[in-house]
């Protein structure tokens, strides 16, 4: 995904302004003129200067690149599906991990990703189940990481 420097610069400018506005409301340390807002403000001002340079350079350059270019993947439904599975699959862990539990969720996400990569069904099922259970056992039993069981709590071992 190619975003032109002038568009990126505008995003950064907006972001830096928001940071600066927020940082100005941060308290100072008792007895000092500076406080929690100092570093964020310096960062914001720095980002603004850099963003302006970025925009200026891009506008002066010829030929000017396209404002935004998604890349070849955007025309291929299969690739869009894969990107969606990676992003949404990962994101699904955030709200659902505690409820559904690691084993079921990870098998589901892994299976979806493998199938989208055109791995045959048998191998996909085998790899997703084996990898999920192996990783779960390794992390929760050996490394004592509290991966939730969720739905399978009652058969937890």
């Amino acid at each position, binding site marked *: *995904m*190619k*975003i032109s420097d002038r568009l*990126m610069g505008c995003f*950064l400018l907006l972001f830096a302004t928001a940071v600066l506005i927020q940082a100005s409301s*941060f*308290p*100072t*340390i008792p*007895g*000092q003129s*500076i*406080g*929690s807002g*100092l*570093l*964020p403000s310096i*960062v*914001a001002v*720095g*980002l603004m200067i*850099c*963003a302006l*340079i*970025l925009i200026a*350079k891009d506008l002066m350059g010829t030929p000017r690149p396209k404002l935004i270019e998604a*890349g070849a*993947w955007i025309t291929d439904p299969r*690739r869009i599906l*894969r*990107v969606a*599975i*990676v*992003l949404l699959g*990962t*994101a699904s*862990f*955030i*709200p659902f*991990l*505690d409820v559904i539990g*690691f084993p079921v969720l*990870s098998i589901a*996400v*892994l299976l979806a*990703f*493998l199938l989208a*990569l*055109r*791995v045959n069904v048998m191998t996909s099922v085998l*790899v*997703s189940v084996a*990898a*999920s259970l192996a*990783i779960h056992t390794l*992390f929760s039993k050996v*490394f*004592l*990481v509290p*991966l939730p069981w969720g739905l399978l709590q009652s058969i937890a071992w």
Partner: protein
Amino acid sequence: MDHIFNALMMVADPAVLGIILGASVFGLFIGAIPGLSATMATALLVPLTFFMDPLPAIAAIVSAVAMAIFAGDIPGAMLRIPGTPASAAYVDDAYQMTSRGQAERALGIGLVSSVFGGIVGAIILTTCAPYLAEFAFQFSTVEYFWLAVLGLSCSVIISRGSPVKGLIALLIGLFISTIGIDVTAGFPRFTYGSVDLMGGVSFIPAMIGMFAMTEILRFAMAASHDTSSVPKSNSTVYGGQWKMVRENKGNLASGSLIGTVIGILPGAGSDIAAWVAYAVAKKFSRTPEKFGTGHPEGLAAAGAANNASLSGVWIPALVFGIPGDSITAIAIGVLFMKGITPGPMVFVQQADLTYAIFMTFFVANLLLLVLGYFAIRGARFVVRTPAKLLMPVILLFCMVGSFAITNSVFGIAVMLALGIIGFLMEENGFPIAPTILGIVIGPMLEDNFMATMIKSDGSIVGFFDRPVAGTLGAFTVLIWTLPLIMLLVRRLTRQSKVGA
């Protein structure tokens, strides 16, 4: 001399050697898994050390950590998932070599330089620990502040491509580091009521996101997936390494020294040692443009610094009981439990044991030469696995690894968010390494700046009026202004030539 001999006899005990071997294998295993850290390896060993004598207990920790730190380079080189913030300094060089079919060679360089740095560090630890510990006490918040600025300067040297984009990357990292409760004012920043954000963004999930998640996204967008994840390797672990050592004598030596000295400083020492070593190697290299494209020089210097700092960090821990990082903090706890109080007296009262502990640093590093070889060879099967089977499993590892750091889904959220940011940055020519460095150094920079301002009642003089601070400060200012001065000198000489 008696102490050294007695120490040797203590270490030569088959039971001790057996424990070192076991702990080493354990350390290698943990370090090689993305997201699992050397700290975790240490924490998991503690219950086992309850049943051990003091020497094997500490030896187990020392060897597991040395192995875990090296093993962290394996997923770094193979999958672009750095094991520690330190190895993020050279992960691109290693990964580039792997994609040219030189995975074994890249890891071999990492291995040889790690052992080199580890042994130099161990020699320094054995010979001058008490004197160097005094050096650490010259450092108050001012000196730490300058050290942080020095670390940030490194990112400017390290980053490739457009300097403006490098600076933006660094500023983004610094911004991320300000999220959470500000230690100086006890005030939550950019948290919007979220308890998880109050804890801040920890750098392991950030690193996993920015390096590994970006790779997975790029993979998902690629057209074909029928190749294995990396080209077939045609290199060997130890082939040509002797030549590498001869060619990189200077880099290895300076990396080891920088690693040990910076590692001594409690706090962020071992995290930035590799970055400084890498930047120094690049600064003095005849081919600085090759850094970051799979070049051995930076790999050698930073790899040596990484392992050397592990010895350095033990110096204040043993001499004054000051933990430099969470690993030595746990190790000090183990020492106490065994009835040994760290302090200058350990060199008198427990001399045999202290030297025996130092000896285990040598044993562990030599063992690394052997076990590291097998670990690299074993990692080959990862390279041979078809990418379309490997990548989904790596995604799972990334998620579990990020979860393990915070023990909550917040780690996964951080990984995903920074993965997307990292992907957009790389696609558009922004380097990632400065962002990681910004996240690591940000708190050190800010906290020490604020503390110094409070101490000097807001006067800028406070930043220069101590000898070490003055030197460091002048040095840093010089680094930033040197290119300008050089430019000016060149202009002037050219003008005088024209004038003549």
